[in-house]
């Protein structure tokens, strides 16, 4: 799999006080090979750090990981915060071991969709599927005229 990664730029990180670094390394490696440009903030990232970076990098999506179980506390109001900061319609994904304990995924998914995440992923998700979804979600949020013109430099996408 290779692609023009310039068209698909995402900000990736592990939110809150979470130090789980392994999945973050794997995601970076697999997404990059799948044609996505990853700006990786690593572990222990605050909501504002995600948002600042997504603005500075003009990223098409923010991919939040939460592995350690405090996702429910750390992700509160994430979409609202994006809106406040002028990133109202950025693609927002979240994945990992999002809540404390083994819980029914459908309930977890609903809970995080309510917080404004576009898609919610379990730890065992197939990353090839994620890559395909991510590309199509980013394409759909782009201003109509610019869709599918992947070679455009990032600055022009938000112009």
């Amino acid at each position, binding site marked *: 799999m290779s692609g023009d990664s310039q068209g698909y730029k995402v900000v990736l990180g592990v939110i809150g006080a979470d130090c789980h670094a*392994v999945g973050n390394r794997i995601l970076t490696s697999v997404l990059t090979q799948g044609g996505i440009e990853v700006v990786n903030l690593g572990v222990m990232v605050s909501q504002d750090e995600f948002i600042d970076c997504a603005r500075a990098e003009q990223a098409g999506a923010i991919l939040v990981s939460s592995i350690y179980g405090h996702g429910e506390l750390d992700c509160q109001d994430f979409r609202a915060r994006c809106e406040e900061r002028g990133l109202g319609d950025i693609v927002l994904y979240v994945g990992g071991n999002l809540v404390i304990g083994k819980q029914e995924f459908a309930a977890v998914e609903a809970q995080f969709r309510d917080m404004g995440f576009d898609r919610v992923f379990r730890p065992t998700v197939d990353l090839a599927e994620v890559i395909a979804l991510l590309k199509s979600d980013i394409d759909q949020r782009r201003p109509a005229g610019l869709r599918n013109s992947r070679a455009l430099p990032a600055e022009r996408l938000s112009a």
Partner: protein
Amino acid sequence: MTDLNNRRLDAAAFDAERGEVLQGWATGAGVCFADALRVQEALPVEKRFAVALAEADAQGHTLLQPRAGVALVREHVALLNGLSPYCDVLPTTIDAYTRHNRYAEAQEGIDRSRAAGTSLLNGFPAVNHGVEGCRRLVEALEKPVQVRHGTPDARLLAEITLAAGFSSFEGGGISYNIPYAKHVPLERSIRHWQYCDRLVGRFEEAGISINREPFGPLTGTLVPPFVSHVVAILEGLLALEQGVKCITLGYGQAGNVAQDIAALRSLRRLANHYFLNAGFTDYRLTTVFHQWMGGFPEDESQATAVICLGALVARQARATKIIVKTPHEASGVPTLEANQAGLKATRQMVNMISDQNRVDSPDIQMEIDVIEAEVHAVMREILRLGGGDVARGAVLAFAAGVMDVPFAPAKANLGKLTPVRDNHGAIRLFDVGNVPLPADVLAFHRDKIAERARAERRDPSFNMVVDDVRAISASKLVGRPA
């Protein structure tokens, strides 16, 4: 590295620092060392960690210990008392906000957990509960209880929990920084852990033995045995210097049986070698084996198989203690029942291995030889860098990549060393980074990896490493191509 060195902290400076530490959160005001001594002295012998370890060591038993921690005191007491019949020593796993001294967020977690009627924290926020809450906990238990965490600056946590009657404290300045933090300078966490060790030293001087356990598994993910052994030895030396007497060194299961048995057998020998060489004779050393610390299979039966393999190896290698995983590992913080299930499976396996003869093989001996050569090479360079001082040597070694932990989040870690499994699942070095291993050892690693590459008809690459990271979750040991 301004003034860090491996010398016992001066009494006046320690007392001054203590004044500041206790102001870190309101509950610090509840700490009084004289009261702490009284609480520890009053602990019945069956609630003293050091005694449980000494007895197990003398009788050749292996103790079982789960991990557990929830937000509220009453629920945490109930959880530990539900686990107690199935284990030998108890844990209190601390939540991640407390680990980063983010006590205001821990408080929000407590409040919201109370409102939700279920724990929203991944551990027990001991600092927020204070000496009083922790004492209620210890009093309600019937077995020794240890603080298990991942805190770069654990000074306040140590003051509060030891004052409440906890009799063992996990962690260390390297093992609770490199895998657990992002921006904490290593010289700072080592210095903060000298304080924790000195505090334990003061208890020892007053006749109270507190067990200290450096965190063996580090990132839990394909960590070569020599890497964790070097950290264990360094943290052991740093603790002994501050007056710690009762030390348990750890190792996290890697997966290949011969390598894991070799690792545990070599750990005790190597540690005694370095401790005695540094002039320490008055200490009690035990070992702890952690069942597989990397990604688990989601299926509960498969997870139980991983747990049992760890139990087998730990008992075969006569670990003093096993840290037990649960069938919920891949999913989330376990329920009481899942935690009991892990303990029961482990107990069955430990019992069945106990009567069996010691397994020896040329493979095990070869792995021991390799680990010892690696540890000596790295320790030699650390001592050289530090001019004989292991505190300075450790900081300089990490900065230069002479010591390097795979997959660690800390900026203080170079992150060049990359492990991969060989054709039999033992952990070898795909990229040694800047770690100064002898040429024959490096050639051995290369040959072992080449053997796997031939078997899989592909070149060794980072993709092979990625496959290995996910292999056990996908029901295998070695990450073979599909």
